[in-house]
């Protein structure tokens, strides 16, 4: 009865063009969670989740924030968004692009992390010294995720393609188990490669540290229907995340940030090595600068070229920069991060 009355009231309010606030805002995270309480690492949004930034921002409105972690990464989050089970998603570039190209009506709101190196790892006993040495060998690839795009870009730079390897589609957890068992010959991994190397399970034979064009990006996007209904809530969320990004990328909090990320399982020492010699502001920036646009345009082009999507994505129309602009202005953070030029190598 109570629910029926609420529905009736909602319908009445909607009819007059003012959407009532939802009871809960659902934020999908395109990676499995670890630790207790569950969390993740490597992103400013992870610190926001740990600090309860969004919960505090929406508490005055009586809105609950629900974090949903997906073991199936970006593809699983896309599936949930298509089924109207999410409002926002934190995810990597390729999953968002495949979702958008497949008809998901989303808008990118702000960047999160960028220039994260990928490490080419092989089992500890492997004699391989380069990607070329792994031609024809078993290579793990989590298809539909940023990892696939990174791999294809690196391979293309060297005149190689997926077909030159025996690629096996595996999720993150399966890949780690297969590596330990020696069932695969190589894989590109993010920071957890360093953790495995410390344990002596793998050898890192290459990384993408010097190549900003192949490094992975993550961002936060919103379901366009939610954005249309609740633009003021979107603005509030973006503002809270920008303030959190400023805190997270402050060098004074470097140790706290790494310690927070380490709660998800990758030790502080691995994060320290992964971030050396980068400043936090270089890697953790919400900016939608020329580099961000160029990276996503390039990613769309590659995704089409590699047959990962069948339709184009208009990146300029996809990104909604107005919320970020407003948040930076209101918090006087316009000059806090340095925007990068399209090639990612110098200031814009």
């Amino acid at each position, binding site marked *: 009865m109570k629910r029926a009355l609420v529905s009736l009231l909602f319908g009445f309010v909607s009819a007059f063009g003012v959407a009532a606030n939802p009871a809960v805002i659902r934020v999908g995270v395109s990676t499995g969670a670890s630790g207790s309480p569950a969390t993740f690492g490597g992103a400013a949004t992870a610190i926001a989740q740990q600090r309860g930034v969004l919960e505090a921002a929406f508490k005055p409105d009586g809105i609950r924030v629900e974090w949903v972690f*997906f073991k199936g990464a*970006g593809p699983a989050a896309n599936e949930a968004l298509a089924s109207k089970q999410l409002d926002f998603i934190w995810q990597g570039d390729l999953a968002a692009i*495949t979702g958008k190209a*497949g*008809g998901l009506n989303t808008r990118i709101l702000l960047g999160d992390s960028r220039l994260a190196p990928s490490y080419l790892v092989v089992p500890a006993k492997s004699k391989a010294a380069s990607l070329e040495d792994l031609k024809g060998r078993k290579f793990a690839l989590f298809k539909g995720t940023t990892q696939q795009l990174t791999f294809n870009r690196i391979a293309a730079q060297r005149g190689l393609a997926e077909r030159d390897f025996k690629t096996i589609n595996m999720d993150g957890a399966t890949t780690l188990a297969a590596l330990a068992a020696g069932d695969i010959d190589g894989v590109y991994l993010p920071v957890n490669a360093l953790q495995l190397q410390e*344990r002596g399970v793998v050898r890192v034979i290459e990384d993408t540290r010097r190549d900003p064009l192949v490094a992975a990006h993550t961002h936060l996007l919103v379901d366009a229907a939610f954005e249309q209904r609740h633009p003021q809530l979107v603005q509030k969320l973006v503002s809270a995340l920008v303030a959190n990004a400023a805190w997270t990328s402050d060098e004074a909090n470097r140790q706290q940030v790494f310690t927070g990320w380490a709660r998800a399982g990758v030790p502080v020492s691995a994060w320290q090595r992964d971030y050396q010699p980068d400043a936090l502001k270089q890697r953790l920036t919400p900016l939608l600068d020329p580099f961000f646009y160029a990276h996503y345009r390039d990613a769309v082009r590659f995704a089409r070229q590699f047959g990962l999507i069948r339709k184009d994505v208009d990146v300029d129309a996809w990104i909604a920069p107005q919320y970020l602009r407003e948040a930076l202005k209101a918090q006087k953070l316009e000059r806090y991060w340095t925007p990068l030029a399209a090639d990612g190598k110098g200031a814009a």
Partner: protein
Amino acid sequence: MQQHRYWLGAGLLALAGAGHAAAPSNEELQKQIVALKKAVEALQQQLDQNAQASKAAPAVPAATAVAASDAAGTPATREDLQGVQADLENFKYQVQRDRDTATATSSRALNVGGTIQARAAYSSQATSTSSSTPAGVVNNRNSSFDVPTAILAFTGNLYKDYDEGRNLGYRLSAGASQQTASNNSFLNLLDAYLTYSVLPTIDPATSRLDIAFGQQLLPFGLEVPATEDLKPVILNAQFTTRLGLAQRQIGLIARGDFDPVVDYGYNYRAPLLTYAFGVVNGNGPNTSDNNSAKDWVGRLAFTVPSDYNSWWRQLTVGGSFYRGKANLFVPGTGTLVGTGDRVRYGVDVTYNHEPFGVTYEYIQGRDDTASGTTQANTRVSSIKSDSHTATFFYNFGEQFVKGFRAQGRYDDWWPKSYQPFFRYDRFDPNTDKPSDESTVYTAGLNVFFAQTTKFQLNINHTDDKAKNQSYSDFLAQFQFGF
């Protein structure tokens, strides 16, 4: 480095010498102080050099980094190491003991599962059954509590192909059926088959072909091959039992698909064509064939190629056939008069587009039957039957959103989901005979509230023209799996 050792040694010697001297002169004391100063400076210089070296080479190998951090803290003693070693030995002993005494093991990978139903039923039509034994008599029953199904299943692999996924697997299941006057068997063998993946299964973008040999469900239509946990309705459609298609059969069946569309953006795989073809005894489960003729079964289904987020997603049209021979007898006797055809054809349409779904199935049957009183005057004729079954359901909740269920969490969370549905089920046992069809209308609600558990509420209204009866059943059931 040599120089540092020299000054350190000199300093220590100076201190040692001072200990033996009875009354050192001022000059000697001055010398000792100078020697000590140099020793301290040398040590300071060494520390500075170490600090600079560590700054210049920050990405030290893991082992070195650990050693350095240990050097800064308290070093482990021999006793510490012996303590750890003792703990490790105790742990190993405990694990081995638990494995020997308190662990179920199997010679190959084994997954134990099961499905159980606990039901309360009320019917507006009373049931009465007479029997020669008291246990078989049913006296004007309107309501009953039942456990209609309890299935225990074992699955696993016999060979796992890590390179290409051409795995060899098995399934064994047994089910407890209700005891009646004519059936006192308690546990029956249901599935017992071996499967082999002929084509690689590693890459979702390639076609599949699996072969199953043994006792198994038939790949006919939609409802027949569906397992209990996937069926929205409590009672099976009438045709499944009345045309004998729900029975498991023993034989060899190949199942596969061709040209799959894979949308990696959603981890969605939809083959353009799925097919199955096989040969079976046709005499049901747990028994040998009763003639030499084998029965053939096949199915071909076409799924509209689409991305996950398309309106065309999961729109499938399929066709199935079953052709076999059944022994014919003089009615009411065991006198064999030969074999007759047993033929089933079916077409089906599915539009399973989360959050809603529609299915429709049309089945036509033809069975040869014998009439007469003796072998000599027996005549064989065909009886045609047909069935229409349509189901509509709508899901509120995330139960059927695969990625949403696979969340990374450390609690026993599961999304609560609600699935109202309606089914129309009409079966005409003889199309040439008027007014003998039976129609069952079912409205119901499934409530999913734990990972493998649902509560089902069904209201059936049956219009049985052959018996000239019209009545309603109310069923409430928990179905749980493990």
